[in-house]
């Protein structure tokens, strides 16, 4: 299927900018969890934050495919900026908030005036989210939020935090919390791949009525979709990073001479490289299906996303490990680019759900499908 020319332009622009920024994650992004404002400004300039938005919100109108495409190029170039955090938080906000608020925030993000983060994971909860410990209680007209969130991508940069809690009735709620509000404490740090993240403590944070974006089943559906969106973008980044790591490794084995010949002459390595290429091709295929399913039925979407994440987590691990192994000792040092891809692929296998999580989810959805399936073979 041919790519629309707008998407092609975006891809080219993204690849150029990514190449221009590299090497981006060298020696970790530091200890603050904050990203480089100059690079963010260039992404804004290039229109990257229009991606994934509806046309009436200033987007290009290609939906999930756009954001996935940029995430893929960002993965290829190891960009450390909080693109994923903003894509996911913004699309959740736009879906859940009223048109006016959604439009305002979308514009502010597009223009680089505000940054967002999406906080769902809680300490000790791994990937569970349907029963958060964070909670809001009413106090007069205000809602008061308490709780903790951990390893929130881009939170040290964020002006607004989209987060998840339960209310006094035990219902899920989606909340929009200004990062500067009293009672919001953020500890920023770098992740193992050099991207920025942080933990959050909400202590009696007073929120106004409009902070409540969604509640109950609406909230549940919106969060689930946001998590699928996040997982898909991580998959896209991993596909980009795997491709780059693979090409780098292929190049290395063609040039590195040992025992008198390029190590790529070793058939054992050749066959393993074919296995890696196969894993990457399957990843690309499953990613495309996940992206295509993003706007579809909940069960089909979940199956496609969990299938992709499940496969890509394992592929990312394998490609990262094998790329280092084939590089030999140099591959284990910070000065080698491949070690940064390895660290990026390590993180990607965890973000928005590990293999065990997505395997269990795929199975649950698959059983729903089997139970629903009324098409009996003759």
């Amino acid at each position, binding site marked *: 299927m041919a790519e629309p020319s707008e998407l092609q332009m975006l891809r080219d622009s993204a690849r150029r900018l990514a190449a221009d920024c590299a090497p981006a994650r060298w020696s970790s992004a530091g200890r603050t969890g904050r990203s480089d404002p100059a690079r963010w400004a260039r992404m804004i300039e290039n229109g990257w934050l229009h991606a994934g938005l509806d046309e009436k919100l200033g987007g290009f109108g290609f939906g999930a495919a756009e954001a996935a495409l940029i995430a893929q190029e960002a993965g290829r170039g190891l960009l450390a900026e909080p693109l994923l955090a903003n894509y996911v938080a913004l699309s959740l906000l736009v879906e859940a908030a009223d048109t006016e608020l959604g439009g305002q925030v979308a514009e502010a993000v597009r223009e680089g005036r505000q940054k967002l983060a999406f906080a769902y994971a809680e300490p000790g909860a791994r990937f569970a989210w349907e029963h958060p410990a964070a909670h809001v209680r009413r106090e007069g007209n205000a809602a008061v939020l308490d709780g903790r969130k951990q390893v929130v991508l881009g939170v040290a940069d964020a002006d607004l935090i989209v987060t998840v809690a339960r209310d006094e009735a035990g219902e899920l709620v989606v909340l929009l919390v200004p990062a500067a509000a009293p009672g919001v404490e953020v500890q920023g740090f770098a992740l193992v791949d050099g991207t920025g993240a942080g933990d959050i403590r909400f202590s009696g944070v007073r929120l106004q009525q409009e902070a409540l974006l969604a509640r109950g089943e609406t909230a549940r559906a919106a969060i689930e979709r946001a998590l699928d969106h996040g997982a898909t973008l991580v998959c896209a980044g991993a596909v980009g990073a795997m491709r780059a790591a693979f090409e780098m490794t292929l190049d290395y084995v063609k040039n590195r001479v040992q025992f008198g010949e390029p190590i790529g*002459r070793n058939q054992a390595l*050749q066959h393993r490289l*074919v296995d890696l290429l196969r894993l990457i091709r399957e990843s690309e295929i499953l990613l495309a299906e996940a992206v295509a399913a993003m706007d579809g039925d909940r069960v089909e979407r979940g199956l496609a996303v969990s299938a992709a994440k499940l496969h890509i987590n394992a592929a990312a691990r394998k490609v990262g490990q094998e790329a280092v192994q084939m590089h030999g000792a140099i591959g284990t040092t910070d000065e080698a680019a491949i070690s940064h891809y390895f660290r990026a692929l390590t993180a990607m296998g965890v973000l928005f759900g590990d293999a065990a999580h997505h395997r269990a989810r795929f*199975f649950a959805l698959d059983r729903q499908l089997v139970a629903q399936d009324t098409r009996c073979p003759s």
Partner: protein
Amino acid sequence: MPKLSPADQAFVADLRAFIAENLDPDLRAVVAAGGHPTKAQLKAWEHGLATRNWLVYTWSAEHGGPGLTPLQQFLFDQTIAEMHAPSNNGLAIKMAGPVIREFGNPEQKAQHLPGILQGTVNWCQGYSEPGAGSDLAAVATRAEADGNDYIVNGQKIWTSYAHWADWMFMLVRTSQEAKRQSGITFLLVDMRTPGITVRPIVASDGHHGFNEVFFDNVRVPQSNRIGEEGKGWTYAKFLLSNERLGVVSLPGIRHALARAEAAVTRPLADGSRLIDDVDFTNRLVDLKVRLRALEGWVKQSLDELLEGGKPGPEVSMVKIRGTELNQDLAEFTMDALAYDALPYDFEQAASVARDIAPTPDFGTTVTAGYLYRRAFTILGGSTEVQKNIVSKAILGL
């Protein structure tokens, strides 16, 4: 899968009705169990398909086929698989047919294509030779010109269903050249020609599908030669990619998945089911995800095939993954059956018919399937050879 157009819906409905009406229940049971149908069962089914011109379902209208769209061909495969009808025999319609159509002369087309369209003639493929394995260019069977004929001497092996075949398309060596791919000629041979002997090869599951075929001064008219003498490798290569995709057999894999699903959902003696055992659940999920990736990949390859005429070397990876998945599904189902997978009747190439502790229906050919599927990663170019091809053609190593 996007929503089907009314035309495609009608096509599927028509096909389903046809299958429901025409598919012999015995044949259906054999296919559902993943077993080996008899020749008579298959011929009856093919005869029926031919009345609707669906036997050559991949052929364009121009070539006398039904001219189905790629989506319809996909739906055809899917519907056939869902309803446990046998897959159409690729030897005639995907190999002999296309090569005769592409490279044969008008007389050859007139002689052979009608039999393929109507399913009245069975074909077999004479490529592999003893000791050559995946090295197909190592053709040693000689054909020496003698007047208007060739005299063929030598031996072919792993010839699927040679004992059912009326005709063989084969590679012979007509001259010795430095480059082994040269000097190979492509012949069509009537299997009733004197001097041809077919010897069965019994597989490790007990089934007889393969054969050795011996040629002892077999006289083949030169008019049975496809294209030029010495150019046989070109025509053979044309088919190799088809063959690789053919071995993948998505319908077969979907059947295998249905058996796997049955094996883990059957209630055990204590009422529990293996599907509630995460050990089996995890494996089943991984198999299903692999099938998703494979289906996507096959679809891309078929698209390439339709666009570019022939699939690229990626098809080697599809062949590897498809055959491995087929094997692993059989292994999974065998594991789910546990003790029930062990009793084995070698002469029937199937489970023992047991009275005291009957084997479940879907389980009767599971073990046989596990055994004979080992050949899938060997035939049609072994996994190792496919990896060598990818390494060279795609990776440039």
